[in-house]
């Protein structure tokens, strides 16, 4: 906490309209989700058009894009597969990332309805929501991801200690 000292007077006050255009983040609890909604069926059509090229027809991974589906239960094995279904802990963050970064060749081009539909479809492909699911600002935060409890913090490091005896500090050339 600090007091605005306005010591320098540099910068311009940001208007609500200016902020609204850039304030795109959606937090893990769903804060920031916009109005709109989308269905699994709508998402299937959009994904086939925009997502399948990189991520595979069924989200299994493809040219340039990681797999988005599968791997549930694999994280503690020798061959972990990290996907939306197996690894991502929060469903609203799916909205955040798709909107800000996808499709990779035209980010921030999708409407809220389209992003909600893609969320619904990817969650459906992973067996997390039923085929008739409708995603919106109320339903998406209620989705419990399989790995929702899989992340730990704070950082436990240093956690590896090299206890080798250190030789005397003189230089032995």
């Amino acid at each position: 906490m600090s007091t605005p000292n306005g010591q320098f007077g540099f910068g311009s006050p940001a208007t609500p309209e200016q902020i609204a255009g850039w304030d795109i983040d959606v937090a893990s609890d769903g804060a920031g989700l916009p109005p709109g909604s989308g269905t699994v069926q709508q998402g299937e059509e959009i994904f086939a058009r925009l997502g399948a090229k990189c991520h595979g027809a069924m989200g299994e991974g493809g040219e340039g894009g990681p797999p988005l589906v599968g791997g549930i239960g694999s994280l503690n094995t020798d061959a972990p597969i990290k996907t939306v279904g197996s690894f991502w802990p929060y469903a609203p963050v799916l909205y955040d990332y798709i909107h800000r970064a996808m499709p990779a060749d035209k980010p921030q081009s999708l409407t809220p309805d389209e992003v909600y539909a893609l969320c619904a479809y990817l969650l459906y492909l992973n067996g997390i929501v039923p085929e008739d699911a409708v995603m919106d600002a109320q339903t998406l935060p209620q989705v419990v991801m399989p790995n929702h409890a899989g992340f730990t913090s704070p950082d436990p490091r240093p956690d590896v200690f090299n206890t080798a005896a250190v030789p005397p500090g003189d230089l032995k050339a």
Partner: protein
Amino acid sequence: MDPLRLGQSVARVARARFTRRAALASSGAGLASALLDRFDLKASVVAAQDATPTAAVNAGDNEPPAVPAWMQMPGAPASAYGERAPAEESVVRWSPAPDVSFSPLADLHGTLTPNALFYEVHYGGIPAIDPAEHRLLVHGLVEQPTLFTVDDLKRFPSVSVIHFLECAGNSFFEWQEGSGGETVQQTAGLTSCAEWTGVPVATVLNEVGIKPGGAWMLAEGADAAGHDRSIPVEKAMRDGLLAYAANGEDLRPSQGYPVRLLLPGFEGNTNVKWLRRLKVGTEPWHTRQETSHYSDLMPDGTAREFTFIMEAKSVITSPSGGHRLAAPGFQEITGLAWSGRGRIARVDVSTDGGQTWSQAMLQEPVRPIAWTRFRMPWMWDGQPARLQSRAIDETGYMQPTLAQLVAARGVNSFYHFNGIQTWDIAADGEVTNVYA
């Protein structure tokens, strides 16, 4: 950097047993040639060979007792923007995928990385930003939401600091046997060090005022991925910098032009480039980048989130993988050490695979959270040897062995590899990376 995609690229490279030096020595060999085409290195290699001083008709014509050709004619005029010597144009970053490039550590001297050789990682390409229209928005839990132009930021009192950056994924090939890089550029080239100039984050946040409860801030870039990370406000206020220059010039586009966040000691991706927004809040956002991307998977299936600090690490850069010692005799061993927790206190070097250690000399001044150059004189007796270095920072933390690291974290955590690197020297002088 997409771990999967980069991993595939690197696997291809590892299979090809490709090194830049090897390619220089035998360009035209089928597989190496294909790789050169793949990575667009061939052009620069050929240019370097063609550009070797050619004034003399025969090799050696410029050596004593002859008068060198370049003394017998006027040289080039002064120029508006400098170029490096043609014979050095083969020193380039290694870019096995479009979103990443590795610094050529073996060819760097001292402790600063030229901006054109600074390692790169990005998520949506390098944006073509018009600095006149770029803005930094500071909002959220602040008293006065404010837009800053680049010129605004440059009007604040400035500071210059020398700090390293390192990708959290640096050395990720080294976790598993058989996937290790050949050269030190491949094994550890996702780090660089520069002198940064900018305005402290604290100056700007104090200007707008943080409201009660403001404990985290979202830092967001103006790239096509809107790359974003949640940062503790305490860290940003302590030593965070809004950097607009590196090594005396404005940032290069690949370094975050016109302004980036610099968080000394924190993993590279938190130092958000092309910074366009700081939003203060009470809790972290748990963005995709900090959950499913830059988190460290443990053997039990849990993943560590917010592993910000880059722990102490060192690597011998010469001799290193791809080099060949010419003959027994004097050989300087030199390398780089760094720690995200402060100064390097000491670096030890072993020439017998870690059985015995000697303390290396550190180049003064040793700066906190900065590359520290170490050197050790060595007489190579022509017998097989194994070179290792281990860094100890001012907290007393000693860089772990590979075995210690793997025992604690398994081989699938991908990020934050800081195990001791081993270079094997054969009787013929060839230097190779070994998993030891």
